[in-house]
Every structure is written in C-alpha cells, then in structure tokens.
C-alpha cells in the first residue's frame, strides 16, 4: 500500500508534501546509528537525515519538533492475527491497523488463520484490497502453507507468492506429517519462499491448557511439556538440513529450543526464530487464579525460560519479536481456563512492554528495536525497517520513559483481551508515520 498511502498523504489533510522531524534522537538499528539529529520526509520516503537537520528545517516542510525523543523506523510486527475475513467481530484489518498505529507499528504481517483460510490467490487479492481501502498501516500477508491449514496438501506456494504473500505458515498449528513438511521446505526452496512455522507437537499439546509444571499441577489444568515445541523444532531443522528451505520458527519459548536454534546457526542453516512479547515479559505464574487473558499459544513458560529468551534476544540468537496479536472476544475468554480460547492482543502495548526489558537493564535499545524493525524487514523481504535515504517514511517517534497505565477499554483493538491490562508500562508512542502520512499522534 506504500504508494497509495503516499499519494493520499500528499493530497490529504496533512497538506504539505514534506515533513521534517527536528530535535530527535535518531536510532537506526540497521546501521547502528544513535545520534541527535533530524529527518526529512518527502513524497512518502526518507529524503534526508542526520545531525545537520537537528535544528535546521528546510523551507516548505511541515516541522515536527521531537523534543529530544527517539525517532526510529516504524515497527514491523511479523505475526498478527485478525478476524478479517470471517471473524470481523474479533478484529478487522481496519481496527487492527488503528491499534498498530497507536503502538508505533507501521507494518503488520497478517496470518492466514481466517475464515476462509488465506490459501488461494483470490483471497490474497481480497485482503490486499481491503487493506488498501481500510487499513492505515502497511499490511503484508503470510499465506497458508497447506490447504485449509490442514497440514495435508501443499497450498499454491508459487502462485501465492506471485500474488504478494511474503511468507507461508500453517498458522496456529504445526504440520504433523513429516513428509509434508519435508516437501513444503523442498518445494518452497525453488521459489525462495519463507516458511514460518509454529512448532508444537499436536499429539502432545492436544487438549493442554498451559505449560507442564508445578503451577499446572496446583491448578489441576491439563498441560503440555515444553519438549512438544523442541521436538518439532528439531525435526524441522533436520529437514532444513536435507532440503535447504528457508525456515523461521515463529514463536519459540524455552531454553531447549534456543539450543536447537544455536546449533542450526552454527551449521549455517537458513534457520531463524521469533519470540512473542508475552514470552519475554510474562511467565506461567501470571496465570494466577485462572486468568484467561494469559492463556496463549505456546503457553507461558517458567521464569527461567523467560530469562533465557531475554538473554538470547540480547545475544542476537532470536531474530524477531512479535506481538502475536490475537484478538478474542469475551464470549470465548470468559470461560473456565481449559475451555477458554488461546490468544492475547498486543499491537498497542508491544513497544511499551518491550521497553520493560530495556528499563530492567536486560537489553539495550538498539538490539531491542532491531528485532522489531530491520530483522523482520529482512525476514519478510520488506523495504521498511530502516532509516536511510529512499526508504519508505514509516517512522515512529516515542518517549521511552513516559509512564502510563494500560486500560483495555481505551485500547483500539476490537477485542480487549490484553494481558497487560491495568499494568504500568513505561514508554509512549508519540507519533506514527506510514509512507509520509501521520497515522497516529498521541493526545489527538
């Protein structure tokens, strides 16, 4: 939607063709840049940036005084579930995009778990058209790897990619059939297509409500051992080894999985991995007395696992942080824990929740932002995620220190299942720009 948004920005309410951010702290994880300066936007792209623009606004450009706050590439969220099409009462592309804009997210990669499943070219076209018409941020599509996400027959990977799909996933389910997974990797390699896989052995995880361990035992909940994740991941890595397919484990959550990823990396395999913000900032104890907003997939793990994930992120072993935004309405969440739906919304709280790790001195700003900007951009082959001349003007201005308390009723998502509800977070999105057009301004 880049071009269209640029056009509408140029002709729309903003009026000016160009905007200059002055007096900002420029942070660009792609280049390692972290310096005071300014940035000029013209025709929807970054026209200039650097220290020389810190105080000097070019004539004719609309001036935004950043007051020393951070200007960085807009966040790219590589895993967002919406209900569009088919479950619009949970979330539409439009409402998801408003939540994204308020969270500083300028690109959302939508998962194929919709009704119908995004497994055909016509549906990719449909989502792209809906996004163009309704969404205020960029929408990328991760299409179904298998027809109907059933894990039985390959979807039309070549044709879907030509239609614009940036990756292929089996959604919330793992592919159980090893031969299908092998053929998927082998076939997608010919197209350079990326496979994004949720790793969880269905035989082990079926019926489980949370992570195995003391907490699950006390609560009397059916549980799944974290090995269910590592087993599938290990199998997949073996398959990558024999096929050469590009593979991304979408949301790993335990220390054992990290060992598999590190080993794959040391063998130079085309393997990468992501982690959800929930698994970086929450653990199984947060479930407390059956709080279903903490019921997610994979389930929240122990504190040891959470710490291992954060350390791996700081060390660069984890490539991408996703919100794993998964809107669920009250009907499916206000149920006994084991019967409640999985999923938590997270677009609007992604940045502030991630900054918890920064404020706790667990990770620096650059590596933290890298996992939400340039890394997902490279993974999905997107032009954004970087501050450089000619790159799309997808930008985020934020104050890393400003505290606020999450009130789920104030969140823009159509569903309100936030695990951060009533929590104090530190770090406020001030402005979000997509292709040169301001799509969110704090307080207005």
């Amino acid at each position: 939607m880049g071009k269209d948004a640029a056009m509408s920005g140029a002709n729309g309410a903003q009026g000016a063709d160009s905007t200059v951010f002055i007096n900002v702290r420029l942070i660009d994880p792609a280049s390692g840049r972290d310096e005071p300066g300014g940035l000029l936007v013209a025709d929807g792209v970054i026209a200039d940036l650097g220290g020389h623009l810190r105080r000097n606004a070019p004539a004719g450009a609309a001036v935004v005084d950043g007051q020393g706050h951070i200007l960085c590439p807009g966040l790219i969220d590589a895993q967002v579930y919406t209900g569009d099409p088919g479950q619009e009462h949970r979330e539409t592309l439009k409402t998801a995009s408003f939540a994204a804009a308020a969270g500083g997210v300028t690109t959302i990669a939508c998962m194929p778990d919709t009704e119908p499943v995004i497994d055909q070219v016509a549906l990719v076209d449909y989502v792209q058209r809906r996004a163009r018409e309704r969404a205020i941020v960029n929408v990328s599509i991760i299409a179904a790897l298998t027809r109907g996400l059933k894990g039985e027959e390959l979807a039309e990977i070549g044709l879907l990619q030509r239609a614009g799909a940036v990756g292929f996933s089996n959604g919330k389910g793992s592919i159980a059939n090893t031969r299908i997974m092998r053929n998927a990797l082998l076939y997608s390699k010919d197209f350079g297509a990326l496979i994004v896989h949720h790793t969880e052995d269905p035989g082990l995880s079926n019926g489980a409500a949370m992570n195995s361990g003391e907490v699950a035992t006390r609560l009397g909940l059916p549980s799944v051992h974290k090995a269910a994740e590592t087993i599938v991941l290990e199998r997949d890595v073996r398959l990558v080894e024999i096929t050469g397919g590009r593979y991304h484990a979408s949301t790993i959550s335990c220390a054992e999985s990290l060992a598999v990823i590190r080993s794959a990396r040391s063998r130079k395999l085309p393997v990468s991995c992501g982690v959800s913000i929930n698994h970086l900032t929450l653990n199984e104890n947060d479930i407390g007395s059956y709080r279903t907003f903490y019921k997610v997939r994979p389930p929240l793990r122990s504190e040891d696992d959470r710490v291992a994930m954060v350390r791996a992120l700081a060390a660069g072993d984890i490539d991408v942080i996703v919100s794993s935004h998964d809107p669920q309405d009250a009907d499916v969440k206000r149920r006994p824990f084991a019967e409640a739906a999985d999923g938590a919304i997270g677009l609007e709280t992604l940045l502030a929740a991630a900054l918890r790790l920064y404020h706790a001195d667990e990770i620096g700003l650059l590596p933290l932002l890298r996992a939400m900007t340039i890394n997902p951009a490279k993974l999905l082959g997107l032009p954004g995620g970087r501050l450089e001349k000619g790159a799309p003007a997808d930008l985020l201005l934020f104050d890393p220190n400003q505290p606020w308390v999450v009130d789920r009723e104030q969140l823009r998502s159509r569903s309100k299942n936030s695990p951060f509800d009533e929590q104090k977070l530190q770090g406020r999105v001030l402005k979000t720009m997509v292709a040169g057009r301001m799509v969110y301004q704090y307080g207005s």
Partner: protein
Amino acid sequence: MSTAAPPSLYFPGRHLLTCEGLSAKEINSLLDLADRAADTNKQVNKKRDVLRGRTLINLFFEVSTRTQASFELAGKRLGADVMNMNVATSSVAKGESLIDTAMTLNAMRPDLLVVRHHAAGAVELLAQKVDCSVINAGDGAHEHPTQALLDALTIRRAKGRIAGLTVAICGDILHSRVARSNIHVLNAMGARVRLVAPSTLLPTGIERLGAEVYTDMWKGLEGCDIVMMLRLQRERMEGNYVPTSREYYHFFGLDQEKLDCAKPDALIMHPGPMNRGVEIASTIADHSRSVIREQVEMGVAVRMAVLEALARHLPNH
C-alpha cells in the same frame, strides 16, 4: 524381403534389462536395425519371418496399452507367436509369488519374455530364474529401456545425430523410469542432459547420473534442441509433491512462452499418455515441431530391432 541384419550389428547381451552401461556402439547397432524396421513398417507387407517358430510372452503386471500393443505388433511383424498374459486376472492375483510365476512361465518354454512390473528390480529378478531372453518393459521407477531407445531413434532421424545436442527432460523425474533410461542412453550417445522439475520431483543425487538440474523451466529450456516432457501422475502428486495441477502448469507446463526459451528448431517429445493442460499445452502437443506421434511409430520399430537382436543369441536347436 530381406531378413539379413546389417553386418555391423553388435549387441552381445542376452537380455535388455537396463540402459545403464550400454555403449554408443550397441545403441547405434540397435538404432540402425530399427531404422530398417521403420522402413519395412511403411510398406504394405510388414511381415518378416526372423522370429518364425519363436514364442514371445508379454507379461504385464502393470496396466499398459501402448507398450504392450507395441511389443505385440513388433513380435507379430517378425513372425513370432505372441501371447499376452493378463496378470491382473491370473494366478498372480491369487497370491502366486513372482518367482513362482516365472517358473511356471519358464515351463512353457518361451523364447522371449517382455515384462513390466510395478517394483523396481522385479524384471531382473525374474530374468535370473528363466532360460529365455527377457526385455524390461518398465520396472517401477527404475528403467524403461525401449522407451529411451525409441526416443533416441526419433531424435536421430529428426536431427541426424544425437551427439552434441542438449536435451531437457522435464517433469516428474522422481517417479520416472523413462527419465532414468533416457539419461543413460543420451549420455552414452554424447548428448547433454538437463533435468527440469520442482525439487520435490527430483530424486537425490540424480545429477550424478550425468545431468544438469534446473528448478526454473525458463532457464532449463534455454538453448535446448529437444524438450522431452514427462507425464505428471496427478492422482498421486497433487498436494503432496506439487500443490495443484494449476500451479504445476503455470511453472512447469510446456506452453509457447516456455518453449520460446528453447532453440527455434527444438523438437517436442512426450512418452505418453499426455495430460493436456497439465504438463503440456494442447497446442504444443499438436505443434509442427512435436514428434510425439513419430515416437509411437518408432516404438514398434525399436522393439522389432530389440527382439531381432536378442533372438540371435537364442539356441537354434
């Protein structure tokens, strides 16, 4: 009509089980003989008597129309008594083992046994147990020697040579016995072999048999003299090795656009039966450069040559 073979005939083998290891000299000998048979087949009286008194049994464990008919015709034109064993309704269906079937047939004293079987290696196993000459008419995904020879004959007649030509074999290489036999024959004859298929339809290590592998058909056909298409077995393919026949046709079906990547005089071949609109566009199948019908014609000639060559080693008393 002359029954004398050209003096140059050189084919020392007792059976024809595989193309692996055949020399250019042996192949050329068979093709020379087949050339003569092809000429004979154009005449009103196609019948010769080099196999008079001989018994040829067609033993087909797998359904076949064209290969079986082709062997039957070849045997009859050379004067042999031909019997077709319909194995699906025979004692094999009642649970008889392959070896027992072989021993039973052997007791009927055939001279030539043409065998097709769904399991790779089955024909060779059978050949070890019988006293007659055995011809492999296709064993699993292993080999189909007479198909490769008829392809070679078709190419040689159309192009005047095989050495130095670039041949692209396209499609389901993984399950194809035709591809494997062709790789051996074409390499022996000095052609360059390319294989074009999605990675899911390429068996591991196939390049070691003497071929360059392409997963992009546009690149694979660039500068080719021959485009040889293989049949896609839709029922067992779809969703597993390739997503759909629609996608397969888009990326690996032979249409005018992809054919334009090959040389302007490139020939189009297909061992049949074709899935029009899946691996080959209907207009391409009927293209002026298509030699698909010639392949069928050469099939009879090549099988006559093979029968005649093997019959020379049969005891005469």
